[in-house]
């Protein structure tokens, strides 16, 4: 397999990905509606409208639904999310790259 070492690096990163959860706090400007309300005292109308219409994602916050809320299982669900996400990203890139190469009309 080409770039074998590169793929190994990615799998190691996925296994280490639960470390990324250890950081306390959240990214600035990525809060939910409840947090916003707590900060400024109200929910901005347009924001609420958009957030209410938003469909749920499959794996919110890089966790597999149904896994335990704490303990080692959270770490495992993060690792699985990392593998799934990295795999999807790589697969999509290969698909688009192939399409770009072979989809040439002329």
């Amino acid at each position, binding site marked *: 397999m080409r770039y074998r070492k590169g793929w190994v690096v990615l799998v190691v990163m996925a296994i280490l990905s639960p470390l990324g959860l250890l950081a306390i706090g959240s990214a600035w400007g990525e809060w939910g509606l409840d947090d916003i309300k707590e900060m400024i005292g109200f929910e901005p*109308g347009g924001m609420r409208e958009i957030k209410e219409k938003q469909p749920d994602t499959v794996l919110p916050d890089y966790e597999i639904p149904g896994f335990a809320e704490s303990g080692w299982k959270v770490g495992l669900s993060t690792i699985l999310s990392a593998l799934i996400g990295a795999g999807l990203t790589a697969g999509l890139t290969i698909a*688009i790259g192939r399409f770009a190469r072979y989809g040439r009309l002329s």
Partner: protein
Amino acid sequence: MHIPDGYISPHTSAFFYAVSIPLWWLSFRKIRNTLKKSHIPQLALLAAFSFLIMMFNIPLPGGTTGHAVGGVLTAVLVGPWPALCAITLALAVQALFFGDGGVLALGANAFNLAFIMPFAGYLFFRVSAGSSRRSHRRTVIAAALSGYIGINLAALFVALELGIQPSLHHLADGTPLYCPFGLRVTLPAMLIPHLSVGGLIEALVTGGAVGFLSRYHPELFIDRSVTGEERDRREADI
């Protein structure tokens, strides 16, 4: 750094889709015209790397967290146009499957992280690294600085896009409809953590990876303008 849905108005979201869609098209064409078939797995690898590195949250000053992006590293290795595609796909998977960054906001997020960051970092790298006969040390320092500049410019654009919301969209009494914070809040909130720590993380990732790869895997630098191959060929033609 990932703008969630609801923080920017539908107008702003539409505007950035209108900007990003032509850029995606140019990126697609560039991949078609310049990358070899054998380069596609490397692009996929870098896209997946970018997805993963964004999961490593690091505490930043001010009680928030941030992460490296890998946008400049990707641009230095494969060129900025293919990098635009790779980072966009990482962002798209994050938005669609993991709820990290909005789907409506994907145009804006791609503009910041997949366009501004790789292109700014790449341009700075080209200028500061100089000719193909540069020293290894200069390459590493130039790459680290490019990463630092790239992520901070991305953070600046995020701050601008969020910070103009209250003045663009509010009720008659001034109550904001989307991001409630103006530029006076968003600029320091995004820039101070990234100028101090976030940028250093990106610099470490970019400088470290470029340093290691240029020494042990120089064949991975497929962007001809970085390897100097293009210049060599042009000189050979004369």
